[in-house]
C-alpha cells in the first residue's frame, strides 16, 4: 500500500494504516526535529506533525509532492514555531552573505580522531550551525534527500539549497578544523 493510501485510511480512522505510515516516517521526522530543535523536542514535533495530519489541518495534495515531503513540511512548520524563526532567520541571512568558503586543512585533523569522536564532533558541529545551513545538511546529507525534495521542504529554489549546502559544509570544515586545539588544550 502506498503512502497516499495509508494517509487517506489513517485519516479515516484505520489504525493499521496509521501504524504503517508512522513506522515509515517517524524516524526521519524525529531526526530532523532533533537536529533543528534539540533531541528533547523530537517527540513533541513528531506528535504535533502526525496529529496535524490526522486532524487534516493541512490538506495533502499529491500533485505537489510526496507524503514524506508533506510530513517534513508540517514538521518544519512546528520546528520554526518552536525556534522563533523570525529572529533566527534574520541572523542566518546575515551569515549567509558573510560566510567565507576558505580552503580547510581538516582532513588530517579528523583522521586523528576515533570514529566515535569524529561522529560526536561532527554532530556537535552540525547542531551548532545556523538553522538554514543545518536544515540543508540534515535533509540533503543525513536524510539523503535530493535537492528538489529538500527545496520543496525548505520552500526555496534548488540553487539556494545547493549554495546553503556548500556553505554549510564549509562551516563544518572550519568548525572541525578548530577542534584539535580544544583537544590539545585538554591533553
Amino acid at each position, binding site marked *: 500500500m502506498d503512502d497516499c493510501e495509508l494517509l487517506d485510511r489513517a485519516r479515516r480512522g484505520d489504525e493499521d494504516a*496509521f501504524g504503517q505510515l508512522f513506522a515509515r516516517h517517524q524516524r526521519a521526522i524525529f531526526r530532523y526535529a*532533533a537536529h533543528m530543535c534539540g533531541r528533547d523536542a523530537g517527540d513533541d514535533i513528531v506528535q504535533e506533525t502526525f*496529529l496535524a495530519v490526522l486532524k487534516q489541518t493541512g490538506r495533502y495534495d499529491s500533485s505537489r509532492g510526496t507524503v514524506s515531503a508533506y510530513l517534513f513540511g508540517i514538521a518544519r512548520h512546528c520546528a520554526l514555531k518552536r525556534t522563533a524563526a523570525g529572529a533566527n532567520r534574520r541572523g542566518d541571512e546575515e551569515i549567509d552573505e558573510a560566510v567565507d568558503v576558505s580552503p580547510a586543512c*581538516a582532513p588530517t585533523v579528523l583522521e586523528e580522531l576515533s*570514529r566515535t569522536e569524529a561522529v560526536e564532533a561532527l554532530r556537535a558541529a552540525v547542531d551548532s550551525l545556523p538553522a538554514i545551513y543545518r536544515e540543508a545538511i540534515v535533509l540533503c*546529507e543525513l536524510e539523503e534527500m535530493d535537492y528538489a525534495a529538500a527545496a520543496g521542504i525548505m520552500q526555496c529554489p534548488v540553487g539556494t539549497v545547493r549554495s546553503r549546502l556548500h556553505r554549510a559544509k564549509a562551516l563544518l*570544515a572550519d568548525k572541525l578544523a578548530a577542534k584539535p586545539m580544544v583537544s590539545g588544550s585538554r591533553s
Partner: protein
Amino acid sequence: MQNGDRSPWLEDALEQVAEDESSLGASPCVEERLRIEVRAISRARRLRTGGIVSAIAVFALVAGISVWRDAARRHGEAAVVTPTGPSTLGGADDGVTAFFPLGYSAVPMGGGRIVRIEVPRAALASFGVAPVEPPGGASAPTALADVLIGEDGLARAVRFVRAARIQEQKQ
C-alpha cells in the same frame, strides 16, 4: 577548488553520523498517544455513519407512511375496505355484480384496495355472468372488472361492471 573535492572525509563523517542516527526515533508513548487519536476518529466516524443511516431510515419510513396515506385519501372511502366478505360489497343495483371470491379470499386481511382493470369478456362466462351487450349493439372484446387486492398484494375477489355503468363512465 570545490568544497566537495577537498572534503571527502566530511562526506564520510556525515555518512557515519547518518548511520549512527538511523535507529533514532520517537518514544513508544508518542505512537500510543497518536493511536488513541486514530481510535477516536474511527469511533466518531462510526457514530456519524450510524446517525446518517438512522436518519435515512426514519426519513424513508415517514415518506412511505405519507405516500400510503395520500394514496388512500385519493382513493376515497372505497379504497380501504374492511374484510367483511366480498359478497357484501357492491351489488346489482350499483351497476356492478356482486364480488366473486378468488383463490386468496380465505387469507385474512386488514385492508385493501379496489383496482379497476379490463378483462376479456370470456372471463365473465367463467364466473357465470352473462355478458351484457351495450345499447349500441357493438360488443367490445373486453369488460371492466373491479379486483379487491389486500394490503399484502393478494387478489381476494372480483366483480364485473355492467354495460350500463360503462356507458355512464364513457359519458
